[in-house]
């Protein structure tokens, strides 16, 4: 979160909202291969209990070590309790993919095969819900 002065009017909020969403959509829709890979680790109590913290640390360290430009963030519960820890990966210009039962060993496979080569790996969780357009 950036340091900002207070939001004084609704217009301020709308301006910030546009700014932030532009930044996020740029990240989402980026077509050039150099742009960032996004890794979101589901870090609610359930995820953490099944080892999501370790997985998140692994992604942060290893992506850095292997020289891959990526943003690793935490998020809330994706609802797939049966497959925790769950990780959503968005490669530039591609649909987000959710991987289930990710431990450091699987994370390594995901980095090497999916993030580097765009090859899918076993254990993808298909999205089974619609979200309202916010």
């Amino acid at each position: 979160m950036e340091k900002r002065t207070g939001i004084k009017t609704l217009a301020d909020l709308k301006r910030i909202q546009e700014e932030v969403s532009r930044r996020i959509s740029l990240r989402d829709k980026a077509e050039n291969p150099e742009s960032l890979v996004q890794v979101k680790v589901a870090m609610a109590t359930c995820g953490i209990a099944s080892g999501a913290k370790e997985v998140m640390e692994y992604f942060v360290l290893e992506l850095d070590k292997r020289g891959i430009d990526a943003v690793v963030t935490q998020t809330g519960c994706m609802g797939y309790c049966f497959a925790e820890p769950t990780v959503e990966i968005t490669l530039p210009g591609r649909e987000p993919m959710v991987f289930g039962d990710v431990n450091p060993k699987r994370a390594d496979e995901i980095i090497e095969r999916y993030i580097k080569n765009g090859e899918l790996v076993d254990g993808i969780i298909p999205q089974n819900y619609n979200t309202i357009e916010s």
Partner: protein
Amino acid sequence: MSQFKMHLLVCAGTGCHSSQSDLVYEMLRDEVLRKRLEGEVQIIRTGCFGFCEKGPIVKVLPDNTFYTQVKPSDAREIIDEHLIKGRRVERLLYLDPETDEHVLDSKHMGFYKKQLRIALRNCGTIDPENIDESIARNAYQALGKVITEQTPQETVDLIKRSGLRGRGGAGFPTGLKWEIASRNTADQKYVVCNADEGDPGAFMDRSILEGDPHSVLEAMAICGYCIGATKGLIYIRAEYPLAIRRLKVAIAQAREYGLLGDQIFGTPFSFDISLKYGAGAFVCGEETALIHSMEGKRGEPANKPPFPAQSGYLGKPTNVNNVETLANIPVIILKGAEWFSAIGTEKSKGTKVFALAGKINNVGLIEVPMGITLREIIYEIGGGIKNNKKFKAVQTGGPSGGCLTEKHLDTPIDYESLTAAGSMMGSGGMIVLDEDDCMVSVAKFYLDFIVEESCGRCAPCRIGNKRLYETLDKITQGKGKQEDIEKLRNLSQVIKDTSLCGLGQTSPNPVLSTLDNFMHEYMEHVHDKKCRSGKCQNLLYYVIDDEDCVGCMACVRVCPVNAITGAKKQTHYIHQDKCIKCGACMEKCQFDAISLVNDYPREAPVMADA
């Protein structure tokens, strides 16, 4: 990037697995190898698509074709037609039951509409500790709109029109609640968020607070504007440390942005939120007990009236809403009452979040439009019952709810239909039970919880539930009599009619609903001393098989209570009235002659030495 042109995703979820999806995978792989396509086509096993009724499922990327009920023998056709010639295999496409047409890609499939995320809209997409991501997803827009463009009454009317009802379980119309609180005048009023989620097997409020705290904060501020309160309090159990931490972070960030605090959006409206920690007593989810607990008193409910809207926290008008109820508010304001009320059934609008747990393949958090059926939840979203066992019942609404059975599978779920079926919406815990669960033990489990959690203020709940528990315990021990069943029913009715608060009034529900739906199980426990699911330890019997027993005396010697008789080289016999079910004989027997059965064994042979 990848050299693969196409991906085949084969569902390897438990449901599809049981219908040969692993064979489908192997056949596809062999076919790809045979056609030398291994460099271009990648076959992947995926998790469950949540559509097990139509499994096994194969999805083809990049064109998103969705094949259902694929047999191993279809593999060749999929590879030849679709991958090589580029023609979809029509007969395997999903047939939309409404239009009777084949659906080409999964984006247009009805079953994806089975789940609609409104309250959970941001959970699992945003970083809950970064307010910017929430703002990007429209957080605080509704608050801004309300306090700069609408009067409190207009907003209350909008919530009333939307038909939103309390998601804590009882289903009181939220708009009406706000209206009552807004009409009472006082120098100070309070908005309270009830985050004291206590039902066994429920975790939806925690997930919302951990995944999207700002939507709750924003809704509380909106409520404050509507009822004329400047202070909000979140009552959250101390067992939720992560939710607490994220709420603290969210409140601090919102204050820094000026979205909480004095003169929000440059208007005269001020609102701030603080946290109050509960010690995790179930009764503190009841609003009057919750208010007492916040005041530092014992968490005991009070008589209503006066309702909290008249005299609540510190004697001031107070509006208490559940987390999930609040999470719906900003969306309703931005998208309109009509949009919201178009979802759901006639009297229950919108969606409901359920925590799906128990003997189900896809344990998880789901959000479904009101009016969906149990069958859709269990078999399509939940992926069916674990290990292909037979479905027995679903316990909804926690200890206050009841069980729904086979005959309710196609009932549309809403507040009224669940009540009519002898259960209730409750906060949204949904525990799936299969043939291996004993319903008497399930009722006993809930009563045990209630006895533990009853605050003790009123006698029917304090004493009556203890007696209910003891009676159930007696039945599971195999010591029950016919009059115990009558006693259960009468006592339940009295507790229901005479308890002070919702906890006591609904506590016999698990007993009543199991009596209504599973009387035969009670009867078996009482009259045949039998527990069909083999869950009641005392109703399992160690027996010796005449055929396999060689009369070696090993079990006779090891039995600590001399319950086994029989001479050397003659079949031994276990006397059930003496047996303490320690299992030592079964461990000792070299010939697997001793087994555990749930039918009361035959009469003892007349013993020469007995």
